[in-house]
């Protein structure tokens, strides 16, 4: 069990999300940076889909009531147990009774704290992920608060620390043209691909709201409501695009100018309000290459973890 002494600004339980409930209006939910969650889980020998804590900002103090191995990935936090410092991207040991202190993030936006055995909150609609908008899943359907006691799964027999170098952040987000791209003016299409888009303050787990030049339709058009998904870039009448994320609604009626590819969705999770990003037009073949790169990354990571012998080992693969 973990006791929350200081909860951070928006800390939730997340796994890889819910599958198969969109047709009743339930978003996929789950970690915004899926690859960082998987990495954190692999470092502590959890299944990829084990639930961990998604940290958004602020300081966390978590008191562990059993011995545990933990790993922190994604956004860069300072990690301390008492006066001892620990490395980001590594698995490390904490003893029962000790308090883990996380301060950050120094860079990036969302971090994932995995604990061996995983966070063992009840499964709701096929997932342990918190869906704030419907107040379901996770720990009582909400962000963590002071005094919460978070149950852990069975501990795993791990011995030494290991670590992985994480992929490099870039603000270039690859995207495929959306079904309604052609409805926009030629100038708006050019602007969409060529300009920098600033992530605005009212972004959240439902969507990253972007600000920049106004995108215009060639003529007013009303669309029937249709399914949307994480990565869908929709353009409401304001002309300022919104990239839907894991907790975004399941259907919408705004024109979809483009779709962020799955391999790059994590960049939206790690871009802070005020930072800028740029969309890169890719072909379906390039999407396959991007997915293949991730497969390679995790394949090599797993090989390195499996082959790891007695000494500390730094796994030096990055994208």
């Amino acid at each position: 069990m973990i006791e929350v002494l200081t909860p951070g600004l928006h800390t939730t339980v997340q796994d890889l999300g819910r599958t198969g409930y969109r047709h009743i209006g339930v978003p996929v939910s789950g970690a915004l940076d899926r690859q960082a969650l998987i990495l954190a889980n692999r470092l502590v020998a959890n299944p990829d889909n084990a639930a961990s804590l998604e940290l958004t900002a602020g300081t966390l103090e978590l008191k562990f009531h059993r011995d545990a191995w933990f790993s922190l990935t994604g956004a860069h936090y300072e990690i301390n147990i008492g006066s001892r410092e620990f490395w980001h991207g590594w698995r490390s040991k904490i003893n029962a009774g000790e308090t883990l202190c996380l301060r950050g993030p120094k860079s990036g936006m969302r971090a994932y704290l995995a604990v061996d055995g995983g966070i063992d909150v009840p499964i709701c609609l096929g997932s342990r992920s918190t869906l704030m908008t419907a107040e379901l899943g996770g720990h009582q359907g909400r962000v963590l608060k002071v005094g919460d006691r978070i149950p852990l799964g069975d501990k795993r027999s791990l011995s030494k620390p290991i670590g992985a170098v994480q992929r490099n952040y870039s603000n270039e987000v690859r995207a495929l043209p959306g079904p309604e791209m052609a409805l926009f003016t030629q100038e708006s299409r050019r602007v969409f691909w060529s300009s920098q888009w600033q992530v605005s303050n009212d972004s959240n787990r439902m969507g990253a709201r972007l600000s920049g030049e106004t995108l215009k339709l060639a003529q007013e058009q009303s669309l029937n409501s249709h399914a949307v998904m994480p990565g869908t870039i929709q353009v409401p009448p304001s002309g300022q695009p919104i990239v839907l994320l894991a907790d975004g609604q399941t259907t919408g009626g705004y024109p979809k100018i483009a779709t962020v590819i799955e391999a790059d969705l994590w960049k939206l999770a790690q871009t802070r309000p005020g930072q800028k990003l740029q969309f890169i037009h890719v072909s379906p073949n390039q999407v396959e290459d991007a997915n293949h790169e991730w497969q390679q990354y995790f394949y090599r990571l797993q090989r390195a973890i499996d082959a790891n012998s007695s000494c500390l080992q730094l796994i030096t693969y990055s994208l």
Partner: protein
Amino acid sequence: MSDELQPKLFLLGEKALVLDCAGLSGSSSKLEIQRQIWHIADICRASGDFDDIVPGNNNLTFFFKDSKKIPFWIKQINTLWSNKRPQDKPGKLIQIPVQYGGEYGPDLNAVAEYHKLTAQEVIAIHTSTQYNVLFLGFQPGFPYLDGLDERLFTPRLATPRLSIPAGSVGIGGEQTGIYPTRSPGGWQLIGRSSLALFDATSEHGALLAPGDRVQFVSVLSISEPSISVQVISDLSSPKQPILKPAKASHKESSR
């Protein structure tokens, strides 16, 4: 000048395919097209190739587990569309008790004034229709209902409310519906039901499904324990009364 009878199929992102029937002309009504969409969704769900299949308003989106299956399914879906139209899907008819006006329906009088009707006339029109559940979306369990009488088409509020209680019944533009969970919203609120449209602990999650029909019933108070939702699911027998008295069949009550 031939009718366009074949819907469009296009990709959404890398792993989703959209069947879009908007603007499909020919002899089919919008509701008939929607029935065909539900039918195709049901058939395809039996396959293991999809993470989910999501109906919209005259469209259907297939979320694939593996994008390599998309070319195969493009052919399949075209064939399914060309096959003969299904019989009526046997959906449920669900009567939902609503307390209209007062604190639960703060915009009822404004809606009446807008249409130069009395509040009672608005209630009478709103309760006289069986609304078709076209699809669920926007929020968990939120039904898109088709069939609002055009005499009640009312613009949304200029300034949306920050928080609307679950169960609120409203009108927004050409639509009517119920908010399943507390949320912000711009619809004109005319009443409230005590109905749980969504229950994450139940097997299906959502009370309503596409193909169901909803009828609102005006009651004096939704807090009376005798008031409950009537689920009338056996539509196969023509002798089945469509409307039952409010206290008749508690055993069929949903929850």
